[in-house]
């Protein structure tokens, strides 16, 4: 029987990234994927004739440019097109838009607060300082502060040195930022509740925290630290939908001899003699490999795909306590035409960017209270995009695809588990909300895919439907992700590695966990790249 050099479980963007790096280093690699299609939470499927959906993730910024370059993704078909600012519509018919043009943006904010308009530059500079600090950590393995190994000590020293270089005042600011709530952070700059509400959306996406919870400022940063062609904080649409990313990764992987087996569900990771040696697929097939790499989240990997006896009890306990909370839903809609948003003036590019309806901090926080009580937010945060306005190739001419990301949606409801009726009711909440701002919206709907955390778990395999494979809270970042002492992509079982968003630096279509994992695997194999 054939023994691969490496088996990667799951063809999400991180799994494919790891696989592509390993294949490039000359390894014989196979990726096994449960679904008939690849991409995991970065998939694009045609659910309505002629429409390419971005079924889960829907915009791109975080994907590390180093990875795009290393893996030659542009040559394999990836093109990311940036878009102009977004817009938040208010309940009273107003709006605030964002513009790339600095001065236009300032004048727009000045409609709501003159002070905030200028404070926006201060905000931008401060966020940029933190981005600059964290950026260099994204593609490095987090050092273990409890270790005395030279590699960890030097790693810590390096972080300390770079930290110290910020100068005294910015060092304090940085520490504070790391632990602050988004609301407190924004209060330092802005006075207008609308401006704050407009900015705060990024702090709650995918997160089981409210903008008033300490630690939520970091989540804001997590969504700012990406870039499109060096323009930090900028977001774009991959041409051909999000599936273009795994598509390019797969081509890059296959160009170096990689093999992808779709429709192959891993039942169990096989451990022999204390080493991971392969995976058992549903139907009795076993695939053997010298190394097994899991793109699944920590719970799926260690609790559901392994025998507890193969792992230390303390480790299992910790993995069980790793917080993977579903808090998001998604509604994907095929539209017969372009919906009107009367609040947005003609010529405002916000329509082609991200549109929101959450016009205050309280709006967002109350949405979180609903989630805590086991309900989807009655007044949800919506991140609405019409990628087909930027990329007409996704749809038949004149038609549009709308992606609606919804926060907060609990994985378990207080009045019983999710079912089809509740899913429909959830979809109605979202569609009604959009219709409040778009009178012709409902009439244009050709097809809607409604995805609750329950669906995300069942279809995509994300525990509780958490889009980040684990909360991005202070206790689960860096050397704590996913479990203290196991944040360097290795597991307690030799030969078994993690490469998913459960590991540093976390979720988002970033690819960094995948690239970092590949580097550690090659390091263990003593293969120089």
């Amino acid at each position, binding site marked *: 029987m054939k023994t691969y050099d490496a088996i990667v479980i799951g063809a999400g963007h991180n799994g494919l990234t790891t696989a592509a790096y390993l294949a490039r280093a000359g390894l014989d690699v196979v990726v096994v994927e449960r679904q008939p299609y690849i991409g995991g939470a970065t998939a694009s499927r045609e659910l309505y004739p002629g429409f390419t959906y971005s079924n889960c993730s829907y915009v791109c910024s975080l994907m590390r440019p180093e990875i795009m370059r290393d893996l030659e993704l542009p040559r394999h078909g990836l093109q990311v097109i940036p878009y102009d600012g977004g817009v938040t519509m208010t309940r009273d018919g107003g709006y605030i838009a964002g513009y790339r043009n600095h001065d*236009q943006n300032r004048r727009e904010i000045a409609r709501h607060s003159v002070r905030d308009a200028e404070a926006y530059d*201060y905000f931008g500079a401060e966020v940029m300082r933190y981005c600059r600090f964290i950026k260099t950590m994204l593609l490095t393995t987090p050092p273990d502060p409890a270790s005395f190994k030279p590699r960890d000590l030097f790693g810590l020293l390096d972080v300390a040195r770079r930290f110290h270089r910020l100068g005294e005042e910015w060092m304090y600011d940085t520490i504070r930022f790391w632990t602050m709530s988004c609301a407190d952070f924004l209060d330092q700059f802005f006075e207008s509740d609308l401006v704050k509400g407009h900015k705060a959306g990024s702090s709650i996406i995918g997160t089981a925290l409210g903008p008033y919870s300490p630690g939520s400022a970091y989540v804001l940063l997590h969504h700012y630290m990406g870039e499109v062609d060096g323009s930090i904080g900028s977001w774009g649409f991959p041409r051909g939908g999000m599936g273009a990313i795994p598509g390019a990764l797969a081509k890059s992987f296959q160009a170096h001899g990689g093999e992808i087996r779709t429709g192959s569900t891993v039942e169990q990771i096989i451990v022999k003699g204390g080493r991971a040696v392969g995976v058992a697929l549903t139907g009795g097939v076993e695939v053997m490999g010298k190394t097994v790499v899991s793109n699944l989240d920590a719970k799926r990997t260690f609790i559901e795909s392994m025998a507890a006896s193969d792992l230390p009890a303390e480790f299992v306990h910790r993995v069980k306590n790793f917080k993977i909370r579903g808090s998001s839903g998604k509604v994907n809609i095929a539209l017969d035409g372009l919906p009107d948003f009367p609040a947005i*003036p003609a010529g405002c590019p916000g329509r082609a960017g991200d549109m929101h309806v959450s016009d205050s901090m309280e709006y967002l926080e109350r949405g979180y209270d609903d989630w805590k009580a086991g309900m989807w937010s009655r007044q949800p945060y919506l991140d609405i995009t019409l990628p087909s306005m930027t990329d007409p190739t996704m749809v038949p001419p004149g038609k549009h695809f709308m992606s609606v990301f919804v926060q907060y949606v609990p994985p378990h409801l207080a009045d019983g588990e999710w079912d089809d009726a509740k899913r429909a009711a959830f979809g109605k909440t979202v569609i009604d909300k959009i219709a409040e701002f778009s009178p012709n919206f409902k009439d244009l709907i050709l097809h809607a895919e409604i995805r609750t955390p329950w669906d995300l778990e069942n279809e995509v395999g994300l525990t509780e439907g958490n889009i980040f494979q684990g909360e991005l809270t202070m206790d689960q970042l860096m050397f704590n992700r996913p479990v203290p002492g196991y944040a360097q992509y290795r597991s307690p079982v030799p030969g078994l590695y993690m490469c998913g968003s459960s590991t540093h630096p976390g979720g988002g279509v970033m690819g960094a966990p995948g690239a970092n994992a590949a580097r550690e695997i090659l390091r263990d194999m003593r293969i120089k790249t």
Partner: protein
Amino acid sequence: MIQPQPYEVQVLETPFHSRTAELCKTNEWSTWSGYTTPDVYTNMELEYFAARNTATLFDISPMTKYAITGPDAGRYLDRLLTRDMAKVNPGRVAYGLWCNDAGMVIDDGTVFCLGENDYRLCSQERHLPWLLDSAIGYEVAIEDITAGIAAVSLQGPTSCAVLKAMGFVGIEELKPYAHAEFQLGGHPLMISRTGFTGDLGYELWIEPAGAGELWDRLMEGGRLHGIRPLGSKALDMTRIEAGFIQAGVEFFPGDLSTRPDRLRSPFEIGMGWLVDFEKGHFIGRRALLREKQTGSRHALVGLDIAGNKPAHHSFIFQGRNKEVGIVTSALWSPTCKRNIALASLRTPYDKAHGLWADVYVHREQKWERIKAPCRVVDKQFFNPPRRWATPAGDR
């Protein structure tokens, strides 16, 4: 209250736009603080020589202007700026700069004392949050009035003659850094003897409705005095000759920097003369006192560079190949006939011998590298007596 400016358009036009657009034959424009302004009207060299030989008009309307009023306005500005503002009386203008807590420069600008408790601060960048936060504990109102005032800079040896020709009686008695009120076509007009060219010159301030008429009257009054409009490129030549620093060029605004090593104190950009430790507390004073004791890290100097090729963005080396700084602004000065530059050097190399600039020259599709020896000189390369003379002369 100034109405919010339009936000649907990307770039705004200044109140002089109808006039400047007609005169801008090159159609070379740049955006300055959200307004479009001409880079060159007809020819950069000729515009430059007009500034040094006759008179020029430069549209400064985009400059950020804040009205600072209230019973504490004077005390507020005294704490904000590093220089002693108690000495700035109504009718006077003061050039100054302000720092953050660490004594690092945020911006420089001019403060017009319009009356008791009534000031106007003009600066390159916008700083409202800093200005407002500095007002905590003071009874003072701060308002951005940029869009409410049109302003034009009339500079050059014949500028006083132009104003006299327009009928502004007694204008020659206006001292440098002073301003006075006049009327023009039913609009109040403020004229200040200030400018950015280092020569005799004036700045004229009027409400936007009077802008067109002001421009026309200036062009008319200057017809016999060689007046012509000045584009930003020629203006930059004059300001380098004058040794004036510019935000974003000689220093980066301290409140917007993302790199700690980019910050500069007043001493480090040659502005130590603006720091008055005797006047009482001002923002950054304690840090600047410490710097005074421990020494500065950088120095901004004027350089006289061999040859005639401007040392744009050149690295400055000392001895064999020790990199000690960088040129921030460079120019072959047609008036001084010297190859000059402003450069930021690490201390103590501002006092060192054996400095040379690494100059790159583009000659017929080929870059050539010149090791040009240079020496540190006074950075006021051009400073004619007529700039300071009162009464002001006609030529």
